[in-house]
């Protein structure tokens, strides 16, 4: 099939690569404006306290300095799902790091000096630091009132008022209790995922310029349109006067979706009447931006003697910190919590709880890694008990084409079996190995996005016959730019170099829901494909009038209009464009994708009203050396196979897989935000270690191609799953060598040693 395409499936180099590797790309911290001031934020030193008073007199007395607090900004709440936040703390602070005041000055030192002159009188309140504590009756309340929820979430929002439980959901099918009673074996285990940090290399940075009742915001964001809507509402100006322009984004991983610096920067600019730039320090990133949303997961699984999974009962308890950005992961777990398994009776419940800590938010794979660690660890425990090979047990129970999945959809375009078989082969599953070496497997799945997941695109022709793609999605490093150019080039009959792209500027590009949840290749890709087809149609219309040949007999190839029926015809695009631009009208192709009704070819739907195609599947295998004396786990090899639908660009696909695997390695082995009484005690790359070049194992990325009919050229998204299965696979490898089961992440040496020690004690050693 690859042979049918000129550009799709080839390793085209990114159009934005040169500017990045030559240092010319302008990232958030690189933006400047004439007369710009620097902003700094005063943050709460306490996890929970009433604000008795704030004295800003002295700070305001500094020349050239603007100082603002909650009194100076609109009294409105905001949040993408739950509106539980204000620009500055009002009446009380809820976590260490919450903004209390801000200053803008000609340089950062002066702004910091101003902050040092502000005095805040706090009255400390009792605080809660774990989800379990916070969910108890009588626990101190992080928010006295819950909500409100924004309209898209209202229907599915289920808070428990008067508690810290901001959302509870439950989904069940069949008779779970009866099925558990019938099962030959029932396994019940509880697992804990840790809170990790996104650790994109580029810190958050925003420059806001409020000028003559219009505001321009330059920021590094995954979702500029959501941000514009939010900022326009917050400052009560029409969206036409609020322009959000994305800078180059130095990594996001879910951490640059929701607003961070933007509201404060706009407020400072409004008050100082100057452009204001704020850049987070790395310490602020670790203590005041966000981390992942960690969960405690309890899984009950019933199986028959022959190893058929019959029933699962899964319970998630999520710690969202002081703001409810953990809602998407907690909801996602309702669909993805069971993993890619065929289970007849199923119950999943999910509880999201506020605590007095920095918020948890979405992080690559949102909600899936936490569940997969539990499910995939327990699968090996089941295999051991039944005396089965973990590979066999998985092959017997994974979803196949036509099965009914956890949300009652019919499974389509699944390449999971091939993924699993290929990673097992690659890692040498079942082959002899030294006693200190273990191997582990995992299979994982992620559902597509649902909430109003719309993308749109424009494709226009330039005067010389080359083309321009405009999309509202953000390039955050994932390689969207090159893939969109490839799609347009393929449709338009242009070489890929003749297609340019502009993205994520609410002043020029069309609406897109944003870059998250591996959705851009699929949704934005389809929008670009439709827009390019529309542009081609318009081009051929003009050409048809020029050469007086019916449009249906015309085609676009190699920058020319040609016709199989008239082999002598060879009209350069350039001439058609000259005609269009001079005598007719510019060619502008438009495409939108993701609305209801965009997936007409789907197989039957069992129950749910809204079906969205594009489940993603993957299998991962690791081989690790375990040192029993030190507890150190050295991963030697990893294979990661993904059912990508169709690989649009093999370099980008491999890059997403390898990058995700290495992030998964950090998540598995050492990453964890550590708190002491709500205060993060490891807020630097010295104390919070992400994987470095020295610990990179041999990684084999594998792309399995089972085309998704609804996707662009059959493609699915790929961005997230590679992070997900590494932790359980390593846990399984550790178990194979040492016989101990670690149920809490990360799997660092002390934990390994502790587990070995308690096993010795249990065995009377």
């Amino acid at each position, binding site marked *: 099939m690859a042979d049918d395409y000129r550009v799709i499936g080839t390793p085209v180099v990114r159009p934005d690569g040169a500017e*990045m590797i*030559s*240092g010319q790309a302008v990232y958030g911290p690189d933006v400047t404006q004439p007369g710009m001031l620097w902003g700094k934020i005063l943050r709460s030193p306490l996890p929970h306290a009433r604000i008795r008073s704030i004295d800003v007199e002295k700070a305001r007395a500094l020349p050239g300095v603007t100082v603002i607090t909650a009194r100076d900004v609109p009294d409105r709440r905001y949040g993408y799902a739950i509106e539980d936040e204000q620009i500055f703390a009002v009446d009380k602070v809820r976590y260490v790091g919450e903004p209390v005041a801000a200053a803008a000055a000609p340089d950062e030192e002066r702004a910091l000096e101003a902050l040092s002159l502000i005095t805040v009188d706090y009255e400390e309140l009792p605080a809660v630091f774990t989800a379990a504590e916070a969910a108890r009756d009588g626990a101190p309340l992080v928010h006295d009132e819950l909500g409100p929820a924004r309209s898209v979430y209202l229907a599915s929002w289920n808070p428990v008022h008067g508690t810290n439980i901001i959302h509870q959901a439950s989904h069940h099918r069949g008779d779970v209790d009866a099925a558990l009673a019938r099962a030959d074996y029932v396994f019940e285990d509880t697992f804990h995922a840790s809170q990790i940090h996104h650790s994109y*290399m580029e810190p958050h940075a925003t420059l806001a310029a409020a000028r003559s009742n219009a505001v321009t915001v330059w920021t590094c964001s995954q979702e500029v349109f959501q941000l514009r809507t939010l900022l326009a509402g917050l400052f009560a100006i029409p969206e036409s006067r609020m322009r959000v322009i994305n800078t180059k984004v130095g990594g996001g991983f879910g951490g640059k979706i929701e607003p961070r610096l933007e509201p404060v920067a706009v407020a400072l600019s409004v008050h100082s009447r100057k452009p204001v730039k704020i850049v987070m320090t*790395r310490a602020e990133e670790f203590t005041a931006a966000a981390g992942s949303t960690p969960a405690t997961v309890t899984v009950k699984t019933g199986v028959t003697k022959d190893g058929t999974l019959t029933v699962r009962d899964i319970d998630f308890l999520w710690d969202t910190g002081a703001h409810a950005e953990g809602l998407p992961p907690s909801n996602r777990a309702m669909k993805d919590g069971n993993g890619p398994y065929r289970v007849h009776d199923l119950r999943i419940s999910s509880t999201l709880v506020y605590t007095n800590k920095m918020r948890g938010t979405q992080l690559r794979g949102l909600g899936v890694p936490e569940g997969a660690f539990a499910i995939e660890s327990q699968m090996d425990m089941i295999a051991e008990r039944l005396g089965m090979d973990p590979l066999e047990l998985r092959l017997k129970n994974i979803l196949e084409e036509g099965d009914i999945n956890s949300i009652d959809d019919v499974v389509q375009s699944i390449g999971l079996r091939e993924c699993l078989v290929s990673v097992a082969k690659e890692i040498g599953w079942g082959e002899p190995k030294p006693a200190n070496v273990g191997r582990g497997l995992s299979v994982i799945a992620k559902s597509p996005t649902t909430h109003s997941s719309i993308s749109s695109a424009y494709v226009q022709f330039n005067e010389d016959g080359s083309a321009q793609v405009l999309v509202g999605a953000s390039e955050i*490093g994932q390689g969207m730019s090159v893939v969109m150019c490839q799609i347009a080039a393929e449709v338009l009959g242009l070489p890929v170099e003749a297609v340019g792209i502009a993205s994520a500027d609410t002043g020029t590009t069309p609406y897109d829901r944003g870059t998250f949840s591996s959705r851009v290749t699929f949704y934005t890709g389809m929008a670009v494909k439709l827009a390019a087809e529309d542009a081609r149609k318009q081009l051929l219309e003009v050409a048809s009038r020029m050469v007086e040949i019916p449009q249906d007999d015309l085609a676009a190839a190699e920058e020319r209009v040609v016709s199989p029926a008239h082999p002598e015809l060879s009209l350069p695009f350039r001439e058609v464009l000259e005609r269009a631009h001079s005598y007719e009208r510019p060619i502008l192709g438009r495409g939108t994708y993701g609305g209801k009704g965009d997936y007409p070819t789907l197989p039957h739907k069992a129950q749910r009203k809204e079906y969205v195609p594009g489940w993603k599947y993957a299998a991962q295998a690791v081989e690790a050396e375990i040192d029993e004396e030190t507890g150190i786990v050295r991963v030697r090899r990893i294979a990661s196979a993904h059912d990508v639908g169709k690989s649009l660009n093999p370099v980008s696909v491999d890059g997403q897989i390898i*990058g995700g695997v290495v992030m998964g390695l950090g998540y598995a082995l050492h990453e964890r935000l550590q708190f002491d009484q709500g205060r993060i005690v490891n807020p630097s790359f010295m104390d919070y270690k992400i*994987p470095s*070049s*020295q610990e990179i194992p041999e990684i084999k990325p594998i792309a399995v191609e089972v085309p998704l009919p609804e996707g662009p050229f059959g493609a699915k998204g790929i961005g997230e799953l590679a992070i997900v299965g590494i932790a359980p696979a390593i846990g399984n490898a550790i178990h194979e060598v040492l016989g101990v089961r670690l149920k809490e992440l990360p799997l660092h040496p002390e934990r390994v040693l502790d587990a070995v020690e308690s096993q010795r004690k249990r065995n009377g050693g």
Partner: protein
Amino acid sequence: MALLELKVNGQEVRVEAPDTALLLDVLRERLALTGAKRGCETSHCGCCTVRVDGMAVHSCVVLAVRCEGKAIATVEGCGDGMELDRLQRLFLEHGAVQCGYCGPGMLMAAQALLEQNPAPTLDEVKKGLDGNLCRCTGYTPIFDAILAYGRGE
């Protein structure tokens, strides 16, 4: 304030800066050379890597005044300003640049490594990049680009 005389990418420049100014801040804020990035405050990320007399250094912990009389090289000096050099091209071909924020620092670290050791082994490459973090690529494509350079590709 002091008047610093620096030699950056082969050019002599004079710039006013406080005595305590760090090289990274002088490059970025006073000379508008924003290729070197700031990713931390603790000398742990390497996004700010530039070369001083050939050595790869974290410019966020080097006083600018200490660099007077030395040759400072930043990413802006690679290639001829329009065309990429061979190492830059290999970075792109191997997918060593995703978000690209670590890229300029990685490139400078790689240059320093390759100058000392024109055909490094994989282990030597890993060691040579120890001061540079990347959150996107998983490093492997960066290793591949540097190894390919060593092979003369």
